[in-house]
């Protein structure tokens, strides 16, 4: 009790309706039943979860929360989180329709995450890895200083331990609300990878839906091997920006994983159910 009370509340209370709207936004997975946004079928929720958040009817790869993903893809009980204590600040005093400060407070409270990335160490099929995944539900997985720092530390850990690095990216890109600092995370993470190359261990980048902007244009595309989940949207500019620029509709399948494979931009498309085995195989082949 005493320790509970002595904890100074660091963040102001969140209105319940704010939390609810946030919780429901990303997954539409509340309640017993869920609707697949691809085939529109109503499916028993437990069915979907058992199937790694892939629609059992149409194979659509739904959002798979970072912690569930890491737990499922790493050898049982091996994941140890690092850098959980890193918390975002508001270096520009940024305000749009809401103050960034408030946006952070609400999001952190609702998701019980400090920012949009979870990183740590663990094993995949017996291979030690420094690993991390984006929390896409946290402001679209946008990269501000905390995400950049965590990704940088992920590569620094891999360098120190001389182990492989695996990153699961799902992000709209750099976080506008942290302005120029978000942009600089691209340089920071890329420089950390340059150093990591010296230990000659593999970096496997797994691109999820969606991977765009400053995340695509930095560490996500620097993988020694790049895998993509089926039909993920992957690219530099978002489709809307491109359509506005060229003033025409984009063709179907543009910037999807299959399009990128065809254009030589990723190594392989791996369905979620095969991901763990493929990662294990690659780690074995590359050392």
């Amino acid at each position, binding site marked *: 009790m005493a320790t509970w009370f002595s904890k100074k509340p660091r963040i102001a209370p969140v209105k319940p309706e704010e939390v609810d709207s946030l919780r429901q936004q990303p997954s539409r997975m509340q309640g017993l039943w869920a609707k697949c946004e691809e085939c529109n079928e109503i499916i028993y929720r437990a069915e979907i979860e058992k199937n790694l958040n892939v629609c059992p009817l149409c194979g659509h790869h739904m959002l798979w929360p970072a912690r569930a993903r890491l737990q499922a893809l790493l050898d049982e009980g091996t994941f140890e989180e690092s850098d959980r204590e*890193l918390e975002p600040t508001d270096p520009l005093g940024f305000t749009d329709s809401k103050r960034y400060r408030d946006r952070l407070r609400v999001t952190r409270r609702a998701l019980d995450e400090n920012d949009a990335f979870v990183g740590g160490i663990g094993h995949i099929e017996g291979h030690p890895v420094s690993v991390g995944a984006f929390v896409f539900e946290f402001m679209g997985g946008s990269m501000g200083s905390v995400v950049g720092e965590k990704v940088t530390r992920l590569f620094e850990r891999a360098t120190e331990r001389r182990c492989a690095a695996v990153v699961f990216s799902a992000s709209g890109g750099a976080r506008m609300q*942290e302005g*120029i600092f978000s942009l600089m995370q691209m340089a920071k993470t890329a420089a950390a990878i340059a150093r990591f190359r010296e230990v000659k261990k593999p970096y496997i980048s797994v691109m999820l839906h969606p991977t765009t902007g400053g995340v695509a244009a930095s560490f*996500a595309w620097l993988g020694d091997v790049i895998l993509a989940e089926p039909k993920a949207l992957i690219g530099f500019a978002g489709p809307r920006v491109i359509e506005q620029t060229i003033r025409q509709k984009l063709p179907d399948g543009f910037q999807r994983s299959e399009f990128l494979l065809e254009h030589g931009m990723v190594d392989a498309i791996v369905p979620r159910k095969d991901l763990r085995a493929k990662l294990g195989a690659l780690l074995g082949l590359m050392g």
Partner: protein
Amino acid sequence: MAAPSFALDFERPLLELERKIDELKSLSGGAPGDFSAEIQKLEKKARRLQSEIFSDLSRWQVTQLSRHPQRPYFLDYVQLLFTDFFELAGDRSYGEDPSIVGGWARLDGRPVMLLGHQKGRNTKENMVRNFGMPRPEGYRKARRLMELADRFGRPVLTFVDTPGAYPGIGAEERGQAEAIAVNLEVMSRLHVPVVSVVIGEGGSGGALAIAVANRVLMLENSIYSVISPESCSSILYRDTTKAEKAADALKLTARDLLELEVVDELVPEPDGGAHRDPARAAEAVGRVLRKHLQALLAMDGPALVEDRYRKFRAMGPFTLGG
């Protein structure tokens, strides 16, 4: 000085006054007398007006100046500061992208590698230069030239001036994001001094892709931002007309970035902006550029890589909670 043919709204009163002064001068036909007192008075007024306008520019006004169509571009600085420029073309795998220009040159006799975004002065030029928005082949050419410089031990000097990397179908097909990502990594391990100067617009990843430097300098009326104020406003306020507000929120001017310790030095511009006196703007750039290059030339390859690593490693504030 001839009055520029293009004027931003807030420049107009000054330019009109200057035109009046020029008219009076030509009326007096160079002979001293009749109008000289009047001219003197107006000149004093013009100076006062100029300092009034330019001493307290809003971020949006700075943004407009950074894009001023008469602002000196990369190739103007090449001409004003360097000798023996030898342009090199092509990425050796797809094409030549004229929105990034690069090549060997000499600064005070010392061979260097120059790279810069290049905008066009008119529609025809902009068709060729793509408004200074590079495609992947531009970034891959830049990478090739930086690696050349590294191999031959020549410093790399880059001039940043782009609205951003081009968002188009072909650019996506050929890996725009990959091209930028690779440049960030390659630049971070160059064993030669790298100095970047933001001379106009520093548009997001498309700017950073040639700006992972030991020293990053900014001209006084230039901007550097993760997103353009227009795009930011359309995403956050769902309204492209709130760019002014977005510019304030983004804190994107040279002064802001110096305060945020993201850039190393601000290069002062001539009164009224670089476009009013490109030669003096180039002189100021040259002075600051030489100073930083001199300091970096004293360092060996590994020290330069370490210096660059530390610089970017330290960027991005966060706190440690419990």
